[in-house]
């Protein structure tokens, strides 16, 4: 293996603006007032006691501004100390633009954000790779945005929030997958918007009471989307498409695979377009990121779950920097067998995002 091969890729780093004004140069004048007044506009989060902060208290840049708003500080504070070669940027406080009621607003903010990202973070260091933000509630506009930004050499995937009014396998979303597949870009989803804006409630029985309860149950939305993608034949229709489930856990996957495979044997005729077991589509097309990694009392159980999933190529390391539920790469994956750990730290992301060489010139600060 070449010395120049990356050894760690962080697949979920939340690059932030220093403030709303950062977006103004990229936003049509008609939207300036609204952006300054409402921001991303998809509502507040579930309440806790007030003691909890979503961002890490140690992550404020020394030059001021919100956590992860200074690309150079993030290299010094996070990438360099942990030996992270690349950070896949997933945005901050903006993913939920798919869930505002005004689709024109969502579309224009997505465009402005992508231009800002390309102009700032992606120019700051070759260590940073971008995710093209789309408004999934307006699939036609989302396709246009993928066409517009897809050719950018440092954009490595499409990203959308996992909160939604509809399950992601449904046909209204297929144009998004067609465009992403054509550009060779995975489609990623990221949580945090469940039950916010005009997304459906986070559970079929309504809203959890507190942030703790809400955070615990995010994986049911991920299960719902993965189930829908497979059953609706998305991966039959788009055989090259990869779908990245960021920050939704993975220990639930064996249960879902087993349940889907079992039902498929008796109910196959409802989805005659599936040509193999549902779990095979999952293994062939779904990737998942580690953070917040499940922490069973017996750490060995985690490795057993990974064996049950049966896809060493499916899991990628993520830290969620600078958020509170950060996973320290030196600690979080210790119980996982070594060769799988290396795949999780780098190899799987190298393959998915085509990052086979360490970043070149200008990579250090």
């Amino acid at each position: 293996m070449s010395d120049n091969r990356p050894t760690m890729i962080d697949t979920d780093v939340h690059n932030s603006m220093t403030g709303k004004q950062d977006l103004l140069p990229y936003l049509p004048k008609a939207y300036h007032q609204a952006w300054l007044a409402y921001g991303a506009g998809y509502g507040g989060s579930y309440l806790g006691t007030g003691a909890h902060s979503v961002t890490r208290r140690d992550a404020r840049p020394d030059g001021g501004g919100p956590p992860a708003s200074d690309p150079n500080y993030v290299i010094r504070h996070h990438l360099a100390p942990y030996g992270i070669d690349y950070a896949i940027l997933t945005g901050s406080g903006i993913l939920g633009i798919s869930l505002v009621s005004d689709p024109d607003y969502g579309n224009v903010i997505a465009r402005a954000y992508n231009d800002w990202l390309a102009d700032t973070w992606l120019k700051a260091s070759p260590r940073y790779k971008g995710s093209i933000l789309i408004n999934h509630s307006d699939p036609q506009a989302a396709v246009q945005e993928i066409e517009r930004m897809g050719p950018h050499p440092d954009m490595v995937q499409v990203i959308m929030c996992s909160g939604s009014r509809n399950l992601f396998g449904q046909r209204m979303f297929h144009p998004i997958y067609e465009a992403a597949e054509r550009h060779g870009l995975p489609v990623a989803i990221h949580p945090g918007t469940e039950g916010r804006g005009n997304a459906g409630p986070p559970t079929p029985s309504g809203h959890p009471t507190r942030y703790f309860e809400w955070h615990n149950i995010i994986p049911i939305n991920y299960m719902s989307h993965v189930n829908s993608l497979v059953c609706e034949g998305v991966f039959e229709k788009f055989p090259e498409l990869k779908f990245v489930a960021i920050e939704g856990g993975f220990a639930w996957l064996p249960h879902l695979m087993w349940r889907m495979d079992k039902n498929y044997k008796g109910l196959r005729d409802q989805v005659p377009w599936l040509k193999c077991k549902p779990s095979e589509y999952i293994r062939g097309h779904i990737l998942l990121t580690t953070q917040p990694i499940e922490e069973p009392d017996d750490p060995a159980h985690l490795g057993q779950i990974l064996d049950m999933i049966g896809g060493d190529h499916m899991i990628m390391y993520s830290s969620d920097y600078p958020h509170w539920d950060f996973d320290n790469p030196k600690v979080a994956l210790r119980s996982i067998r070594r060769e799988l750990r290396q795949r999780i730290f780098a190899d799987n992301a190298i393959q998915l995002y085509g990052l086979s060489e360490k970043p070149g010139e200008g990579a250090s600060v």
Partner: protein
Amino acid sequence: MTGREGKQAYPVARVGDFGEADRLVVQVKNVEIGLFKVGNDYYAWRNLCPHAAAPICAGTVCGTMLPSGVYEHEFGREGEIVRCPWHNWEFDLRTGELLADPSVKLRGFELVREGEELHLLL
């Protein structure tokens, strides 16, 4: 009568025994066996589903949705499929294979037709 490969041939039914039915259940050496008529052909399968031991002969003989493109529905193979009465697994009556996973199969027996007689080789 002694059949091929030294197997014993048991006369299990006459073709006319089927009447309008698509199956008959017979017993040979204490084993329950389903005889299925598919078109003009006859097949013998053990009356035991490989999943959880349901009496497969109590299932429905039917057609099903053929493998198709996404969002297409094409019905076919009428009379060639048996659906287990318990968990609805679909088996191909000609091959015994589970449609969803051909590595799973009904246990089959050789059946030969001699004029009007059906002989099971065991």
